[in-house]
């Protein structure tokens, strides 16, 4: 029987990360879609950086930033008694940064794909920007929201480089499933590694399959004008 702790830790990390990302990404994507701020392209580039950056690079800089002997890490430890390096909250922050584009980009392209007249119609009917976002725009980009949620969740589950660098692979605290597979392979326990890997494989496949099925049904039921 395999140790289920790394799997639960991975699921917990993914759930927390995805929930926080959803709350952050909706206003962020909405701002990127509709703001006339000229430098927003710079913000877009920064958000998408984790897509091209090697996870170890991001992990390395986060490790430096969270280090209790310098800058931010020192400040957090001295003022808030919070140590992010080699801890679960540290993993969550690393995952948030690393998976941000996987949530923001689908929501952003969903909003940009809506006819501008939907938002304008809501304004001319006297509705505020918030009401328009919640009652008109978001319900019509449900497939994009679902895609963002699932991609962020699956991406966090599969995270390796960042969690390795800032988590330290501590059993029960930061040793997530992807690290457990690596450890088992290193120890030549291929059978256990295979069980972890198969479970992750099956879970990821079922998740993506259900997203495509739901999106297909939604698009058929609510075609845009």
């Amino acid at each position, binding site marked *: 029987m395999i140790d289920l702790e790394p799997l639960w830790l991975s699921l917990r990390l993914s759930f927390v990360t995805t929930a926080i990302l959803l709350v952050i990404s909706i206003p962020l994507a909405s701002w990127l879609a509709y703001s006339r701020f000229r430098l927003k392209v710079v913000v877009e580039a920064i958000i998408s950086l984790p897509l091209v950056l090697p996870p170890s690079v991001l992990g390395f800089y986060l490790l430096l930033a969270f280090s209790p002997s310098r800058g931010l890490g020192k400040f957090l430890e001295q003022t808030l008694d919070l140590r992010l390096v080699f801890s679960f909250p540290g993993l969550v922050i690393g995952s948030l940064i690393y998976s941000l584009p996987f949530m923001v980009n689908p929501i952003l392209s969903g909003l940009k794909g809506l*006819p501008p*007249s*939907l938002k*304008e*119609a*809501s*304004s*001319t*009917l*006297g*509705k*505020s920007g918030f009401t328009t976002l919640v*009652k*008109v725009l978001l*319900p*019509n980009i449900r497939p994009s929201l679902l895609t963002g949620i699932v991609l962020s969740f699956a991406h966090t589950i599969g995270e390796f480089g960042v969690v390795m660098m800032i988590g330290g692979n501590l059993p029960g605290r930061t040793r997530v499933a992807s690290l457990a597979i690596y450890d088992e392979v290193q120890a030549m326990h291929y059978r256990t590694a295979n069980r972890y890997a198969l479970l992750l494989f099956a879970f990821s496949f079922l998740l993506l399959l259900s997203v495509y099925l739901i999106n297909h049904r939604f698009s058929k*039921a*609510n*075609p*845009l*004008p």
Partner: protein
Amino acid sequence: MNSTPIKFRALKMLQTSDGRLPLDLSFELEKGRLLTIYGRSGAGKTTILRILAGLTDPEEGFIEVESETWLDTRTSVNLPARRRSVGFVFQDFALFPHLTVRENLVFALQKGEDQRLVEDLIELMELGQLQKSRPAQLSGGQQQRVALARAIVRKPGLLLLDEPLSALDDEMRFKLQDCILKAHRHYHLTTILVSHHLPEIFRLSDEVLCLENGKVQRQGKPSEIFLEQNISGKFKVTGEIVEIIPADIVFIVSVLSANTIVKVIATAEEVKGLRTGQKVMVASKAFNPVILPIIY
């Protein structure tokens, strides 16, 4: 009843296929009137509606509706769209796809407002059978009726219609012109319509504003704008010349009106100023026309 006219003045640079064109115009409109903005594609007709609704900002401008200033660039007043009392019917209708017909109308109500207006509009626009349908299940004409009803829910000070009938066939167009007139009169609305369909303009408008090269060329009654001289005829048909052919010493001019072709005999002198594609009015002063009902 407030009789202060709607005042509009704006300067806006337009990007057209021929380069930049300044839209620089002003007009006034009495409350309760139906004005049609007429002009070529790209003349800035839709932009005027968008500036009125607060969806596009002009470089300079002033808008006053029912004694309330909506826009004054000199004093930096610019009410956002949601605070202007407008109803806007978009070219693509902009119905919310995830809501039913009834829910689209209810959405337009303000907090705590009575739903009876929605019931009245559903009845007036004959939407009773469709109220539980989603927009995707409706025909173009039905969607137009829903969009019109939704725009009126707020009882707007100004109803703006951006070529709402352009995608419809002639029969449907005629029925929906009725809907617009019915709503305009029933709710005592002040309405601005963008159209370049002459029969529609003659049927609906109290006034026409003719737009050319970004400026108001003329404003007045349709007959004053489109006819060189006023004819108090017994019978008038507007349409487009589709053919001018010589027949002995006269010419036969075929005019397409709605989906019917009217043939008119004209002298060589009369056809001099006419060409195929031109919008014209055919009028008869001396003879009584025959009227027969048409059963669809």
